[in-house]
C-alpha cells in the first residue's frame, strides 16, 4: 500500500510543477462547459417540452463533467504503458516485485485523481457562482451528495478497470493503436461524454444504460442533480459494482494469460 501512496505523491507534486498547464486546463474546461451549456440552452429555448432533464440538472451535469474530466476521459491512456508493451521494456517491469495489474491500476488511478483534484476546485467554485439555472446548483440533498461521492469513486474504478482491459489486450494484438482508437471514441459516446445519456431516444437509451460505459460518469453526474432517484439510483449503483467486479476479474484473467505469454515467448 505504501508504494502506491508514494507513487500518488510523486504524481501530485508533478502536477503542481506544471501549474501553468493546470491553469490553462481549467480555462479550457470552463470555456468548454460554457459553450456546452449555451448549446443546450438553444435547444431548450426552441422546445422545452422535449427536454428529458431539467435545464438546471443538465447544467450541473455539464459543470461536473468538466470539473472531473480527468477522472473519466479515456483518451489519457498512458503512452508509456503502450510503448513498454510494444518495445519489450515490459521485461523490466516484470523484474520488480509487484503485480503488473495492481501497479498499473493504482498508477492510472493516481494519475486521474491527481489530475482532477487540482482542476476541479476552481471550476466548481466558478460554476457555483453563476446564476441559476446556468450554474452548478447545490446537490439535491445530503443523501444525494453522499451517493454522488460513492458513485463517483465507483465510476472512476470502472473507468480504470476498463482502461486496464485495453492495456492487457495490447499483449494480444499486433496493433494496439487501432484498438485504442476504436475503444476511445466508442467509450466517449456510450458513457455520455458527448451528450448525456437521457437525451438518447428510448430503446437505444435503455440498452446503453446497461453497458459498463454507463457506469462511468453517467451515474454520479446524474445523481448529484437529482435526475436519478430512488430505485433508479439503487439499480445504477448495483450495476456499477457488478461491472467493476466483472471488469477487474476479466482484467486479472487477461493479466495472467499475458504474463504466461510474455514469459513463454520472451515478450
Amino acid at each position, binding site marked *: 500500500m505504501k508504494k502506491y501512496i508514494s507513487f500518488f505523491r510523486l504524481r501530485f507534486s508533478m502536477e503542481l510543477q506544471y501549474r*501553468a498547464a493546470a491553469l490553462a486546463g481549467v*480555462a479550457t474546461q470552463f470555456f468548454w462547459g460554457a459553450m456546452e451549456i449555451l448549446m443546450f*440552452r438553444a435547444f431548450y429555448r426552441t422546445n422545452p417540452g*422535449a427536454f428529458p432533464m431539467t435545464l438546471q440538472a443538465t447544467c450541473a451535469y455539464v459543470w461536473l463533467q468538466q470539473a472531473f474530466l480527468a477522472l473519466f476521459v479515456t483518451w489519457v491512456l498512458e503512452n508509456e504503458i503502450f510503448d513498454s508493451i510494444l518495445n519489450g521494456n515490459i521485461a523490466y517491469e516484470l523484474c520488480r516485485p509487484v503485480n503488473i495489474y495492481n501497479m498499473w491500476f493504482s498508477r492510472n488511478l493516481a494519475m486521474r485523481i491527481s489530475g482532477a483534484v487540482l482542476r476541479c476546485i476552481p471550476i466548481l467554485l466558478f460554476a457555483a457562482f453563476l446564476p441559476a439555472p446556468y450554474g452548478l446548483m447545490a446537490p439535491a440533498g445530503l443523501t444525494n451528495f453522499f451517493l454522488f461521492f460513492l458513485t463517483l469513486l465507483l465510476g472512476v474504478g470502472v473507468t480504470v478497470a476498463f482502461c486496464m482491459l485495453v492495456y492487457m489486450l495490447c499483449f494480444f494484438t499486433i496493433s494496439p493503436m487501432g484498438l485504442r482508437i476504436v475503444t476511445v471514441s466508442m467509450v*466517449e459516446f456510450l458513457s455520455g461524454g458527448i451528450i448525456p445519456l437521457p437525451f438518447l431516444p428510448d430503446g437505444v437509451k435503455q440498452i446503453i444504460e446497461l453497458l459498463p460505459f454507463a457506469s462511468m460518469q453517467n451515474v454520479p453526474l446524474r445523481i448529484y442533480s437529482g435526475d436519478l432517484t430512488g430505485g433508479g439510483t439503487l439499480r445504477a449503483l448495483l450495476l456499477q459494482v457488478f461491472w467493476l467486479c466483472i471488469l477487474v476479474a476479466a482484467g486479472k484473467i487477461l493479466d495472467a494469460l499475458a504474463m504466461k505469454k510474455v514469459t513463454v515467448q520472451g515478450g
Partner: protein
Amino acid sequence: MKLYGKFFMIHLKSIMQYKTSFLLSCLGQFLVSFNLFLGIYFMFRRFSQVEGFTYSEVLLCCGITLLEFSLAEAFARGFDTFGSIVSRGEFDRILVRPRNEIFQVLGSRIELSRIGRVLQAIVMFIYGIRASHIHWTLTKAAAVALMLLGGAVVFSGFFVIYASICFFTIEGLEFMNIFTDGAREYGKYPVSIYGKKVLQLCTFVIPYALIQYYPLLYLLDTGEAYYALLPLAACLFMLPCLVLWKIGVRHYVSSGS
C-alpha cells in the same frame, strides 16, 4: 510552389513507409468526428430544429466547419506542432536555410491522415446540401469555396498565434485549444445559437462568424448578398497573426532559447 511539391512528395513517401499506422490514424480521425455527428444526430432525434435551423442545415454547417478546420490542420500542421519543432532545435535548422521561415514550417509537417475527417466532412456536407433544398447556383458554389478558403486561413491564423507564443513559453498553451479544437467542436452549430453575445464576439473580435454563420445565411437565402464575401474579410485576420510571428522570430533570434 515547386518546393512545396517536393515537401509534399516527401511526406507522401514517409507515409507509405507506415501504411497501417496511416490507415489507423485516418480511421481515428473519422471516428472522432463521427462522435460529433452522433451528437447532432441524437439531438435532432429529439428536437426538430434549433433556433430556426433544421437538421440538414446544421449538418451542412458542421460539414463546412469541419472541412475548413481539416484543411488548415492538414497544411498548417507545422505550426500546430511547433512546440516540438522548437524544443527539438529544428527551428535552428530552418534558420540556417536561405528560405522564408513560414514556408519552411508549412512544409515541415503535412498531415495527410486528416483525410479521415475530410471524408466525414464531405459526407455531411453532401447530405446537408441534398436535404436542405438549397437552390444551387454558380455564385453559391463560389461562396462555399470562399468559406473554405477563409476558414482555412482563420484556423491557420490561430495555429500561427500558437506557434508564435511557443517562442516565449511552452507552458500552459493548452488554452489555445479553445480557439482551434473548441471552434471546430462548437462550430458544428451556426454561431448564432450560442446567443447574441457569442455572435458579436465571433463577428468583431475573432472572425468565426464570418466564415460560418453569415455565409451560411447567404446559402440558405436568408442573408444579404454581401455575406458571401465576408470570408474574404476574415482572411485579414492573418495579418496580425503574421506580425506576432515576426515578433516571435525576433525574440527567438535575440534570446536563442
